[in-house]
């Protein structure tokens, strides 16, 4: 086994790993960033980026015979234009109890899911850091909003977030926001109706890590080409490739190794320090190891937990950093908190091939500002869209022939949709562990994911659905239709997180206030695994801010000779 030494090793190169690499290198450390997946070069490797629909064999219907996933709610993994960014679950299986399905979506390549995400970028609000302590669900965060606010600002300024700053308790921040994407006339009308019917619930354009103004030469404003998830060579879309990786590379202190599966984190004999990592070459399966003074685990929440469990040794028999027994517990995702749709009138529009990258947003308004729900704790935020029917309505319309064709030449009626995305309560019963029987294509034990929605989650989904339908009705829309609330499959929001809770007390948490394992002070976990609650906000902004904060701490400790 070859041995090479770095100041820090970063496992994973997605949203979190990219930030760890940038911060650690910019603060002077020599860093090795390892990713299990292939290299994806910015621009060159976005092979479907501006392709027209007719350039795809099945024209967007997906390749049914070569499905990449038979797990529930994983349709994205089979899309013809983006499937090459989604992990094939036949190679990367996982198990669940029969009655507790879970949808786990991974992006295993350099850039991780930063190449696939929808880029809605919100802070957690002050209340989100307090509610675990207030209502007793989950473990109290060892930090409050004030501890992370400046890091949110720092990230906001660097990555470029477009949106609107509003004075509302669950919509903090916005000092460095770029102008938001403009709303279309139907959305503007909806905004006006909302302001009249619900003046206490602001509706505005989503905050997006998508540029409306250039940052330097290599990150240009969005040109509305449409399918953002195919890769964005203009760098308008925040990804590791467009943003954090170039910054880290510019320091000349970063080495990136793709196709390198970290199979174990190595520790000293006493178990008190991480000494490096063991890596399997994804192609040759050859093993090698690398040494470092610091290890940052950023493999995405559940993969990070899996790695910590796979790294169990004599000193850490239940997985690294698990003296509390809490590793893998309190797994969360966001709850689909209902949806409703209505029709409205609007202008004829041209047929567009492309479009604006973001939706509309209503920050959480439940259980804040004096509102108190009798049926559930915490709350949900909403997204909205206004769109008009296109040719696809033809499949639902009667008729054939010339008149039919001429009708479809025009765009159709307008609709508005509101959907909710809610906080899933942290619950110790929602957990992951290593499956003793099943292995992935590289012979590595897979995760057993045992996670389900609880009563509070279901009550919020039901309540949200009713709220949204009521909102549309009170705004004066016609034909309001409430989406049925199903059982819900956790993981569907692709915001899986938790499992390595932070805290001050090492008996009651896995990580300390700076994201390092209580048991191993040079081992940091800064992705979604470190979340004590999921809030109502899309989470990646928080992972970035937490990672930047932890990396600054680690670099300072390193320079002071304490790591």
């Amino acid at each position: 086994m070859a041995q090479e030494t770095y100041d820090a090793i970063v496992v994973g190169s997605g949203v979190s790993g990219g930030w760890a690499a940038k911060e650690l290198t910019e603060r002077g450390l020599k860093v090795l960033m390892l990713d299990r997946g292939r290299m994806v070069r910015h621009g060159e490797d976005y092979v479907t980026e501006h392709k027209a629909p007719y350039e795809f064999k099945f024209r967007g219907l997906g390749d049914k015979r070569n499905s990449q996933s038979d797990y529930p709610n994983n349709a994205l993994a089979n899309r013809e234009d983006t499937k090459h960014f989604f992990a094939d679950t036949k190679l990367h299986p996982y198990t669940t109890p029969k009655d507790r399905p879970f949808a786990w979506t991974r992006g295993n390549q350099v850039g991780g899911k930063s190449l696939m995400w929808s880029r809605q970028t919100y802070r957690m609000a002050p209340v989100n850091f307090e509610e675990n302590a207030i209502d007793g669900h989950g473990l109290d965060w060892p930090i409050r909003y004030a501890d992370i606010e400046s890091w949110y600002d720092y990230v906001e300024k660097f990555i470029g977030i477009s949106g609107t700053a509003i004075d509302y308790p669950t919509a903090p921040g916005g000092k460095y926001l770029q102008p938001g994407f403009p709303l279309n006339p139907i959305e503007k009308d909806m905004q006006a109706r909302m302001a009249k019917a619900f003046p206490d619930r602001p509706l505005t354009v989503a905050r997006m890590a998508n540029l409306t103004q250039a940052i330097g030469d290599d990150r240009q404003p969005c040109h509305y080409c449409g399918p953002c998830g195919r890769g964005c060579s203009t760098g308008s879309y925040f990804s590791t490739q467009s943003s954090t990786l170039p910054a880290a590379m510019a320091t000349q202190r970063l080495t990136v190794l793709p196709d390198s599966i970290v199979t174990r984190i190595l520790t000293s004999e006493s178990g008190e320090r991480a000494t490096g990592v063991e890596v399997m070459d994804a192609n040759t399966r050859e093993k090698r190891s690398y040494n470092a003074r610091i290890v940052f685990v950023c493999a995405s929440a559940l993969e990070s937990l899996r790695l910590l469990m796979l790294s169990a040794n004599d000193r850490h028999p239940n997985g690294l950093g698990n003296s509390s027994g809490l590793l893998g517990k309190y797994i969360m995702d966001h709850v689909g908190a209902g949806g409703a749709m209505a029709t409205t009138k609007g202008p004829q529009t041209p047929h567009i091939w492309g479009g604006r990258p973001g939706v509309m947003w209503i920050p959480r308004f439940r259980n804040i500002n004096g509102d108190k729900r009798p049926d559930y704790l915490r709350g949900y935020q909403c997204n909205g869209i206004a769109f008009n029917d296109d040719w696809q309505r033809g499949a639902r319309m009667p008729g054939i022939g010339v008149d039919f064709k001429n009708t479809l030449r025009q765009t159709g009626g307008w609709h508005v949709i509101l959907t909710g995305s809610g906080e899933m309560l942290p619950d110790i019963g929602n957990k992951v562990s290593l499956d003793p029987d099943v292995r992935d294509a590289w012979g590595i034990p897979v995760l057993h994911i045992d996670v389900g929605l609880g009563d509070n989650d279901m009550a919020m989904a039901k309540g949200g659905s009713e709220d949204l339908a009521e909102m549309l009705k009170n705004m004066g829309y016609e034909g309001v239709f409430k989406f049925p609330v199903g059982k819900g499959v956790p993981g569907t929001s692709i915001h899986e997180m938790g499992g390595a809770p932070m805290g001050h007390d090492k008996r009651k948490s896995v990580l300390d206030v700076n994201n390092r394992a209580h048991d191993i002070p040079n081992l940091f976990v800064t992705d979604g695994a470190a979340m004590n609650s999921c809030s109502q906000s899309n989470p990646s902004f928080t992972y970035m801010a937490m990672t930047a904060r932890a990396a600054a701490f680690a670099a300072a400790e390193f320079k002071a000779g304490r790591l």
Partner: protein
Amino acid sequence: MLSRRTMLIVTGGAGAAGLVGVGSAKAVTRVTSTGEASLTAQEFRLIAAMAEGIIPKTDTPGAIGAGVPEFFRTIFNDWFLKDEQIAFRASLKAYDDEAKLRFTKTFLRCTAAQQSELLNDWDKKSANMFARPPHPFGQFKKLTIHGYYTSQVGLELELKATMDAAQNDPNGPLIQPVSLF
């Protein structure tokens, strides 16, 4: 409605028919990866005629001119699962059987008016969302529409969809639609 000219093209006349003919001849010899035989020339012509009946040539090309029959062949050969291939093939036979029953000739030999009558009839039947199994024409129509409006002809000539329309709309841009894939 199916014009005489379309009928000529479909049954192997000039222009686009050349393509249709060549493609179908190749298709007969092929066995798809499920083990099912590929579409026969006869089946291919039936598909073309039905698709053109749904989206005919007007001031812009219809289904045939947009390559919808070829899209069906791709779907049949490489996309349908085996049971779907079998069901689809059976539905093609059923369309012809019904044409024979009503007009004593295959769909392709029916007059344009007869074809139109049959297609309209199937369209009405397939509109019943509660029918189990659903009438197969619903799927046929859906694939025809999908094949047509995602083709270059459908997008660029018929819909005049342009890539930067969203950016240039003075009213403010629309959210990216899923409908153009």
